[in-house]
């Protein structure tokens, strides 16, 4: 989970757990640490070879745009199959279009209304629960 806002991260995690997700959740607070985690210190992405990953990505990060991370992920030969769920406050149509063009798998807007928010995350959790995540190659 790449999310700079601590509160958002907590709320997302809570609701995912409520939906019955027990997988390890790694929270990365900024773009740089996310890049290091995903692509390793050599930047090749080899570190994650063979792991089953699902990436929750916020677009508004303090040091870079989530869109850039998405782009790098989809260009990387090891990570391009990893499902990416963009989870952000931005509901700009052109932004949504751009993310799907770049290969994002799901785009979810964080609603301010908490009921809707909790609902959306829990449903995402259920969705993730049943979906088959490919192992990175």
């Amino acid at each position, binding site marked *: 989970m790449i999310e700079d*806002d601590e*509160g*958002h991260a907590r*709320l997302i995690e*809570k609701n995912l757990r409520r939906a019955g997700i027990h997988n390890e959740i790694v929270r990365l607070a900024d773009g740089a640490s996310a890049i290091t985690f995903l692509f390793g210190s050599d930047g090749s992405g080899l570190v994650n070879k063979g792991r089953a990953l699902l990436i929750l990505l916020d677009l*508004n990060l303090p040091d870079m745009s989530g869109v850039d991370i998405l782009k790098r992920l989809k260009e990387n030969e090891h990570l391009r199959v990893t499902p990416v769920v963009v989870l952000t*406050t*931005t*509901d*700009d149509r052109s932004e949504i279009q751009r993310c799907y063009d770049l290969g994002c798998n799901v785009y979810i807007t*964080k*609603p*301010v*209304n*908490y*009921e809707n*928010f*909790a609902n959306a995350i829990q449903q995402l959790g259920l969705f993730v629960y049943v979906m088959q995540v490919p192992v990175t190659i």
Partner: protein
Amino acid sequence: MTPSTASRAARSQPILLALGFVILITISAVSIWLVTRVEFGAERVAHTLEVRNKLANLQLLLRRSESSQRGYLLTSDLGYLATYQDDMKAIAPALDELASTTSDNPRQNDFLAALQPTVNAKLDELRETVRLYQSGDAAGASALVGKSGLTLMQETSTVIGRMENEEQRLQSVRTAALANSSRWLLIVTFTGSILILVLAAISVLLLRHSLKEQQDANRMLEATNQNLETIVAKRTALLSEANEEIQRFAYIVSHDLRSPLVNIMGFASELDAWRKQIFERLAALRAQVGGEQDGESDEALRSDVEEALSFIKSSIAKMDRLIGALLKLSREGQREFQPQFIDMSQLLRSTLKAMAHQAQAVNAKINIGELPTITSDRLALEQVFSNLMDNAVKYLRAGVPGSIEVRATESDGAITYEVHDNGRGIDSKDRERIFDLFRRSGIQDRPGDGIGLAHARARALVRRLGGSINVESEPDLGTVFKVTLPKRWPLPASEMMT
């Protein structure tokens, strides 16, 4: 050339012209006067010459008659007698003629008065000698010639000589006057011509100066115009840049504001959930220890917490709506307009269809007249007029059947569409306020998503379309919104500059 001297040159042009005319007229008048003077002088000179001629003629006649008389007395030749008689006859008329020509001169009159008796005496003497001679008294005749003939002849010659002198004096005076007049004529004409030439030269000089000044002014004006155009272009660029900046700002702010809101809302909701658990647990604990009597204060605490949380939630919900509205506004500001030909009557009718049941619910009749067509952005106009009509329907007076009418007037490249209603109206102090963001006027008794965005949005859109929106209203009588738009949008670049 400095502007002050230039304008002085321009001002002195008519003065110069007037001066030239005055000089020309003066020269003409003086010349005419001098020419008549010259003519008069020449006449006088001619007159004097005539008088002198006549004097000479008289003298000649007298001398000839005398010499013929003597010739006759000497030779008794009848030829002499005939000449004598002819000359004698001519003398009196010659004397009369002389008298008539010199009648204007008193001195000559005096001389004539002296001459007349002398001539008559001479003539008498001549006649007497001839008569004496013819009667045979040759000696008596000779004596008479010797006695008075000579003296009388000398006397006449003296008087005629005096008259001749007088005429000579007159001639010299008159000739001098004539020469004087001619000289003056020459001087005046020459001086006048030179003056006119000088004036013309000055005038030409001034004209050249003012022409140069005009050219300078034209050049300056041209430069200023060009400068103005660049200034306008620069300002326009700055303005649109500032506008874009504001749009970007609104967009970023609304996004960044939303992010903490998600947290506040989220954790408030979580708190709410925990609150239930806490009070349940509290009640269970209390049941275990048997503290029943504090149940009431627990209940009060519970409702306090509940109230606080509900305020937090409703405030967040409102804030979210405001941010959403801001976002919408900034997004609309970023949209590129697509000008197209629009049948306004048709556009408004389709807008009307979308709000038909809303109008029916409040018993409002909406009437759309025949409206002129326009070239503009369809979506923007739909939004503007649906906002205006929506508001008109929303703020009708309770208990009065609503009537909303859309009309239009066309003038000089612009069309004014007017939305009339018979609603509750807008107080004069609120008329500008309604166009502000998030501001409304009058009693707020209408539910729904109204957060005072409609008019602000309408104004923003109309302004971007190069138009203006105004409101006229009487409280409790109704409101007229006037939307003035250019008939063609965008305006051609040339019109934008003016």
